[in-house]
Structure formats: C-alpha cells, structure tokens
C-alpha cells in the first residue's frame, strides 16, 4: 500500500480544519469518542457547530487562542492509500513551521477563501510549495457556498493563481484548482451537485489518483553506521547501513565512496535479514562491498560515474528558524546526509519577501522565518546535488553548536 504525504497550511478562518475534519469524517477515520469529545469541547466554548479544529490543535495554548502553532500529523486510510497530513499554521510568524510541514510532502493543499481571492498568505504558501518543488499543488477555492457557487468567481481566482504560479521559477509542478465548500462537503469526497459547471475530480479522488512521485536523481546513500557483528556465524561480515535517499542500486554495480573517492562493487544488499538484488529510494538496507575500504558514518555511497561534485563553496536558499539572528561571523554545523561539519554563511545575497515575491536587499543577519539566498562555505567538501535535480541530496540543516538548536534549513542552488 502506498503512503501519500500531504501538507496543508492555513489559519482557522480558511476553513482548513473543517476541510481536514470533513475528509476524516467522510472516510470514517474519526471514532465516536473523539467526536463526542469535540462536541463537548465545542459546547464548552459556546460554539454552535462542531469545531473540528479541536481535533488537530493538540496543545493547550492552541486551543485557548484558537490558532494552529505547530505542525500536527493526521492519518487516514482509503482503499487506495495511507495518507499522512502535515497540518501547519498559515501566518507569516510560523513560516518555519510551514516549511517543516511541507518538507516531506508530495502534495501541497492550499486553501483560498472564495470571498477574498488570492491574498498575501496564498503567495507565501505557494512560494514555499514552489521553493520545495512539491510535485503537486492543489488549490481549494473554499467557501463557494458563500459566493453562490459562482463559476465566474472561481474562474477569476483560478486565473489569478495560474498567473501567480507563472511568475515563479519552477514550472514543472502540476497545479489543480478545485472549487469546494468544506462546510457543506462540496467536491471533497463526492462531486458537488451545486457546481455542475466543474467537471474535474473532487479532492479525495484526486489525492487517491495522483501517481506517487519517485525520488529524482541517481543513487545516493548516506551511511548511517557500519555493521560488524564479529560473531561466529558472521565473522567477517562488514556492512554499511543506510536509507537510500534517491535512485536505485543493484548487486554487482560499481559504487564510489565519497568524499574519499574510492570505488568498489556491491556484493550484497541485505534487508531485514534477507538478501535482495536491488535497493530503491526510501529503502533502509545494509550494503556489503567487495573491497575492504574505510567507510564510516558521514560517508556517502553513490553509483560510480554518477558522482555529485564535491564542493566547499555553495549557493543556497535558506529559511532561518531561530530566535537568534544569523551571524555571518560565527560558524555553525551543517548537516548534509549523515555528515556533520563546520560551516559559515559568508554572505546574504538577498532576502526573499514571500508576500510580494520581491527580492529585498539584506539587512544585518537574518531574522526568524526569513528566507534568503546565501553563500556558504563548508570546512570540508560535501557531495551535494542541486535541489532541483535531486531534492533528497540537495538539502541541509544548520545547527548552532552552542544551543544545539536546528537554526536553518537550506536548499542547494
């Protein structure tokens, strides 16, 4: 069974929680006791309807303020797939949470209020979906019931959105715009009777039928650890454990270890105590090779002839995620794959305004939630791919050595 990951972003007013609640409700994914608990809580808050946001806003502070602060993970199944929704807040001060939620998504669901059309928040959500190269973007034009299910209103918003998407660089995304009413369930799990003019699929049908995108790029496997049992039955076994981040490798293929550059041949692919002839992306395996070469955590196995370039100077987009400003004098730790070494942001080239989509001149440092293009220098060469070519090997995080916080996420240009 496939696993399909969806990112949603929005604030309470968008009807995002209602939309998710509806999907859960109509796929029989909420149990009676949870529904009753929401009913009780809604009554206590003096709300006349079922406040489905109470289902996803899991923290006391969120329920008190009626806002989503952190990413929540929601699970449901249909006969076709297992779905994981990363539900994130929508306001600018939570941009980092939006990126976190979107970081593993295969589809971004963006909500637009039919009465308001494309607003600043839509720009931000789409910019993030675009920056992260999320393969599918589904725009739900919500609250169609409040605009009399007007085709004209919908078409205008759709065109506005397509214009917005054309202004950003990544045009390989597949974009679908759907008119919905999450309150009444129009075009969520079944086609709406109120909008016969819409001939596309309802949201759930679409989510079930979009092909699971394969990880782009050739074989890359960051080594997590070496496995050397040294027991009687496996005296000489020496395997390298890791999760294939992209591509595919077969027994017999030539592999190169980076950064050392030494080559060998795959002699075995072990998984869960069994041997197999191939490993593909997202699989956790243990690989054995023909030669005794020094390999440890931080190294990367790649297919010989398809090596990424080893570089110490990089250009990247980063999103700053810490309350302390970025300091271009100080060094941080960069983690790329399983490698963690020192790095410095040597220059901020421009700050990206996610609302106006303008590139702004940088000021001192970078503030939390700011997205910028920077130059980066690493203490040792890293085997990186450009994010666009190989998303799985094109990302990194920065860690503050002293607070240990994850302070930024980045995408190699």
């Amino acid at each position, binding site marked *: 069974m496939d696993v399909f990951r969806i990112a949603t972003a929005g604030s309470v007013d968008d009807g995002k929680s209602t939309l998710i609640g509806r999907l859960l409700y109509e796929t029989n994914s909420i149990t009676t006791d949870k529904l009753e608990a929401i009913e009780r809580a809604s009554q206590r808050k003096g709300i006349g309807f079922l406040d489905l946001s109470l289902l996803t806003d899991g923290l006391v502070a969120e329920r008190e303020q009626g806002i989503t602060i952190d990413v929540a993970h929601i*699970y449901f199944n249909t006969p076709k797939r297992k779905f994981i929704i990363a539900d994130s807040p929508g306001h600018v001060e939570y941009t980092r949470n939006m990126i976190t939620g979107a970081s593993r998504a295969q589809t971004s669901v963006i909500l637009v209020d039919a009465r308001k059309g494309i607003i600043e928040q839509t720009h931000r959500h789409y910019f993030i979906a675009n920056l992260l190269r999320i393969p599918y973007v589904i725009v739900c034009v919500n609250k169609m019931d409040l605009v009399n299910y007007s085709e004209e209103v919908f078409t205008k918003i759709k065109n506005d959105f397509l214009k917005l998407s054309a202004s950003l660089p990544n045009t390989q995304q597949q974009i679908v715009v759907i008119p919905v009413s999450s309150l009444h369930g129009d075009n969520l799990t079944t086609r709406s009777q109120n909008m016969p003019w819409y001939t596309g699929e309802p949201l759930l049908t679409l989510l079930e039928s979009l092909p699971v995108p394969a990880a782009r790029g050739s074989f890359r496997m960051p080594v997590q650890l070496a496995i050397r049992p040294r027991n009687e039955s496996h005296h000489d076994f020496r395997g390298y454990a890791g999760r294939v981040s992209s591509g595919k490798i077969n027994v017999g293929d030539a592999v190169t270890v980076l950064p050392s550059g030494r080559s060998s041949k795959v002699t075995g692919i072990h998984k869960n105590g069994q041997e197999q002839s191939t490993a593909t992306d997202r699989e956790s395996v243990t690989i054995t090779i023909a030669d005794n070469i020094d390999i440890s955590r931080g190294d990367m196995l790649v297919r010989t002839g398809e090596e990424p370039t080893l570089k110490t100077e990089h250009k990247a987009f980063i999103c700053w995620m810490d309350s302390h400003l970025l300091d271009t004098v100080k060094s941080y730790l960069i983690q790329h794959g399983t490698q963690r070494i020192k790095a410095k942001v040597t220059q901020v080239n421009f700050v990206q305004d996610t609302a106006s989509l303008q590139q702004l001149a940088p000021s001192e440092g970078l503030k939390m939630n700011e997205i910028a293009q920077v130059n980066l220098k690493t203490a040792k060469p890293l085997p990186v791919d450009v994010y666009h070519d190989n998303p799985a090997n094109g990302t990194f995080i920065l860690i503050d050595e002293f607070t240990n916080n994850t302070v930024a996420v980045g995408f190699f240009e």
Partner: protein
Amino acid sequence: MKKDYLKEFPREMEDEAIYIIREAAAQFERPAILFSGGKDSITLVRLAQKAFYPGKVPFPLVHIDTGHNFPETITFRDKLVAETGLELIVGLVQDDIDAKRVAEETGKFASRNILQTTTLLRTIESLKLDACLGGARRDEEKARAKERVFSVRDDFGQWDAKNQRPELFDYLNGRIRPGENVRVFPISNWTELDVWNYIREEKLEIPSIYYSHEREVIERNGVLWPYSDFIFKDADEVVQTKTVRFRTVGDMSCTAALASTANTVEQIIEEVIGTSVSERGSRLDDQRSEAAMEARKAVGYF
C-alpha cells in the same frame, strides 16, 4: 469484510522506523528501549533486531515497573528477554514509594501511572541514558501528534511543546547538553492498525491479555475495570466474570477491559477496524482531562 484495504501494512513505515532506530544508535552514546510489554514496544524490539541484523541490538531494554502490571505482561517480558538475549533493566516505582519520593494516590480511582515519571527520570539519570526509544505514536493522542521524532527533554525530563526543534526532511538533530536526554519515537507515523498488521505479518508474539479470556471485572460508568488487589471496590459494586480482552497494556489500575471474543490477531484486526472507539478511550489515565497527556509529558512522562 469490505474494508480489506485496512489490513495492508505499508512497508515504507518499516523503512522509516529502521532509519530512525539507526540514527538513535549512531547519534547517542547510551540509548535504551523503553519496554512496557505492550504491542508497540514489542514492535520496536523487532524493528531494532532488523535494523542491526546480523549484528546485535546495541541497546538494553528498560522497564519501568509500577508493581501494578498484569502478571501476564511480566511473564511475557521475561520470555522475550530470554529469547532475544537482550539486557533488561527494571526501575521499580515501589523503590520511590519506599524512599518517600512519591506518595501513592488514594481513593477509588487511585493509580500509579503518574508516579512512573519519577522512577523513569531516576532510572535515566542513574544509567546516564542520553536517549530512550519509545513506542509512542502520533495517532494515539492529540498532544502526541505534535511531538517530534527526536523529542529533546531538559535536565528534568520536561517537554517544552512550544519550543521544539524543527524536523525537516529526514534530518534528526540529537545534539544535547550533558544532563539532557532525547525521547526517540521510531513509530511516530504508524497507526494502531499499522501495528496490528505488522504483528500479523511478522508473526510477533504478544502477551495473552490481548486475546479474549475470562476475567473478573467491575462495571463502573459503563467501563469494565479489571478486578485486582490494586483497585478499591465499593460495597455496592459487584464483581462479575466476563469474556474480555485488553486493547492496550497499561497498569491493572488504569486499563479498561473490552468485552470481546477475539482470539487471534486476525480477529483483533477485524475488531479494531469495526470499532467506533479510539485506542486511548480505554486508558483511564487519559480520561482525566482534555490536556491530561500534554500535562504529563510536560513534566517528563513518556
């Protein structure tokens, strides 16, 4: 049965869990598996065996024993330890009660659930554990749904929900200061059904109380309480024998029984698919308030 699709286990979830377990082994010096004897921690043990095969699992099992366990759970635990050859370390809540670090709750609804936290933190400190792998899942409870895979706890074991490290892509940041520790949740993204389907596919053994059996129970407000020395019985309450099983394994004083005739994993799966009550609905410890779980986590609970 119409809902056959709910009986498939998505294999990607196993790859993800094994990746997380290996990260825990690589990033920490003294990790351990928190083992309760329940289905989720049993699943974790199997995943750990697979993650390091043909090598050995590089972690001991740590069991926080409230003294109110079902005897079947303890029997099962000891058998599993004997079969896997893993090291077992037990932290006894009774020791903290005897040392007067904690006081037992009193009254009809008394439970030792809340006392476990003190014993857990003491055990972590005495063993100098820097990471504890647990079988918690995000679908269990809404506060858990917000927790990270690597959840950093301060010197007092406390979870700061509003100040969590962002987790992006597959990156897990386990860097901590001395004294801090990390709770690692490899099956965060599994659902209850994922666990059951995995148990079926892997033919895992589970404690007998998960299967239907005859048991003395007391019915309170529509909930079946297992009758034992650990619960107080009012004079007007009647002990009856019923055919029941348990959906989760907690203490005898805080886990409700379920009227059920399910005798096999297959039948349990059918039952879980057909139920209209969530898993934690049978945990009396969660029913105390809307924020019960978040409040316990904030002070160091699992």
